[in-house]
């Protein structure tokens, strides 16, 4: 079984439900167990390159560390908190530490689940599945697909534009009015180019008989099988199990507007 073969819509649904369940709790153990589980699943069944995974994960890790630090060092002091360490205005309490950790791990648990989805799902497959299983209107879906193809083209166009202006001797803008002027110079041709390309693609799609009609026969059928449901229940089951473990260890708390 491979994560790539799981129906994209069900995969997305699973991730969303898991995140919703996780957000009900606020303790360090539930997200920690979920993180361990989802990372294991990603690498065991996803054939994901570790480098790619790390590239996506690092920014979240960074955010999480900042969260932990700030909540830990500047806690909301309540009567009865256990002070672990104090230095000037900095006070670290056991409760504050736990809150910070819960928050950081929570961010990371959302991240690992989302990365699992992103790295094992092709955008085209996801859109095809959304059309076939979730009845997303083809007009919207194919529009997104065409737009997705455009992104690198627009980047390229921007670079060319920058070069073209360099050759004309337009020096890099320094002051704010200069920057606004420069932005104006970039925006018009970029927009003109993007609109023209979009029009051409739209025309080309229409010329192949695309009307946006809802009943389409798809060349590539994206199916739902037993495996997909097994995946759904295993993942959600794992999240609930995490909460259960946390409860057994005595950490489980419901989210109560802590931050």
């Amino acid at each position, binding site marked *: 079984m491979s994560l790539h073969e799981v129906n994209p819509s069900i995969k997305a649904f699973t991730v969303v439900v898991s995140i919703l369940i996780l957000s009900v709790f606020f303790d360090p153990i539930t997200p920690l167990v979920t993180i361990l589980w989802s990372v294991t699943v990603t690498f065991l069944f996803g054939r994901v390159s570790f480098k790619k995974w790390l590239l996506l994960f690092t920014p979240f890790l960074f955010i999480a560390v900042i969260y932990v630090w700030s909540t830990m060092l500047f806690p909301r002091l309540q009567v009865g908190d256990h002070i672990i360490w104090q230095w000037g205005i900095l006070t670290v309490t056991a409760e504050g530490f736990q809150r910070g950790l819960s928050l950081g791990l929570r961010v990371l648990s959302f991240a690992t689940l989302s990365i699992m989805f992103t790295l094992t799902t092709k955008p085209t497959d996801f859109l095809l599945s959304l059309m076939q299983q979730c009845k997303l209107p083809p007009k919207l879906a194919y529009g997104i697909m065409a737009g997705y193809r455009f992104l690198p083209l627009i980047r390229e166009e921007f670079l060319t534009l920058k070069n073209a202006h360099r050759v*004309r*001797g337009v020096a890099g803008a320094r002051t704010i009015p200069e920057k606004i002027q420069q932005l104006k110079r970039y925006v018009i041709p970029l927009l003109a180019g993007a609109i023209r390309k979009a029009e051409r693609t739209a025309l080309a799609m229409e010329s192949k008989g695309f009307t946006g009609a809802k009943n389409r026969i798809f060349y590539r059928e994206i199916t739902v099988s037993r495996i997909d449901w097994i995946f759904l229940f295993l993942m959600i089951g794992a999240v609930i199990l995490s909460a259960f473990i946390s409860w057994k260890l005595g950490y489980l708390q419901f989210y109560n507007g802590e931050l």
Partner: protein
Amino acid sequence: MSLFKQLEAEGLGFSYEERDIFTNLTFSIQKNQSLLLLGPSGSGKSTLAFCLNKLYPEAVDGILNGSLLFEGKNLDDFNQGELNQKIGIVFQDPESQFCMLTVEEEVAFGLENFNVPRIEMEAKIEAALAMVGLHDEKKSTIHTLSGGQKQKLALACVLALEPEVIILDEPTANLDPQSSTELAETIARLKKERPFTLIVIEHKLDDWVEIIDRCLVLDSNGMILFDGSPRQCFGEFAPFLQKEGIWLPKVVNAGIAAKNAGFYKGERLPLRHHELLAGLENSVAFSIKNNITVSLGEPILEVNGLYARGHLKNINLRIHKGEMTAVVGANGSGKTTLSKCVSGLLPLTQGQIHFLGMPLSKWKEKELFKHLGYVFQNPEHQFITDCVHEEIGFGLEDQAAIPAILEKMGLEKEAAAHPFSLSQGQKRRLSVATMLVHEQDLLILDEPTFGQDANTAHEIMEVLNEKEGSVFMITHDMELVDQYADTVHVLDKGELIFSGTPESLWGNLEIIQQARLKLPFRKRLQNDLVRREIHVAT
């Protein structure tokens, strides 16, 4: 051929944003006819083509007047999308006509739109890809294909729907010479295998002359200038077409030139190669290029051991003072990358470039671009002000030079206009003018004649030819190389495989094959003449 009228237009007119694109067109197209639609740029050829399969006026807020019938039925009576199965179209730009990621998905996209049962799709996709010779690329992603392959894919998408009419809207505009010829040959073969009505809009006509059996010519006001056989069109009407700036087949151009020079004794102007040959007297004199060998000045730019972008490999070349240099090669061979390196816009991975005796990297950018100009492929990219006059005057010390250059480029009347509001030809002339006015030592141009009508292309090349400094231009047009270049560099897969005079390149058929080039018309003619002489002699 049956004389059944498949498409009938009566009093057809189209206006868009209160401007008439074309007016009062009356014509009909018979089943399985091959029609060539000609006209200067901006005459509404593409617009007309889009009206014929009902893409317009829905896609733009235009107004269509008159009546248009397909197989006797008014176009308005067809359901949305219905007509697109019967009339297919291949567009000019290979990049923006696909919406899927892989080849098979793209072909399937059209079939899905017409609800072809899934079990039949596979076979239809395979058949369509086989027809254009893309069978091995079925699973490839589209962006890995070459320009020529992309246009073949676009054709396959159309063929899969088994249409009755196929419209080609400048399908070879972005292709290298050999890919262009291949596409025309593919169409010719397909037409023999399974007849269909063909409507072609093209600039490069020589590959298509054999296929077409009728010409419809629009003038710059969007009215019918001529409707009839190709022979009549390019024979009697050739001078009118020339005046309108419409590209003619090279055989016809050569015929006219030969007639004016008194070499051509045929009764009517030639349309095919052998007719020209038959009509030519004193043939040798005609085909020899009166080329004064230019003695090259000292080198102003030297490239040594250049590697860049992981694509260009070990490039060594010189650009001399006053030299007109052309860079040629197939799509993706590294021409644009090289020209960007030479102008300091792209960093080198290895090697050196010296410009006017100083390493390029040592130049201050502002100083560099006073001595070196670059005209980008899309003129709009270079416009930075709100009016034509300011555009030319930007960064110019001597503002008094503006009127002269405006006049030289035929832009006097547009001095106050916004650069973006100009026509395609005017935009191109303006972008060249903004560079020319600075009288740089070296001017680099990325396909200066791309998408231009014959007159504009000719004017631009004349201006460049007269210019004092050196010129370094990328082109696909072998005629330009033959006519204007002193030196030609051939790139193939990032390597410089030839540097020398055009004449010596034409003698090296191996290089021409490898780089997907073609001999220019003059050279082909010369070869044929020599062959004839030998034939006569034996």
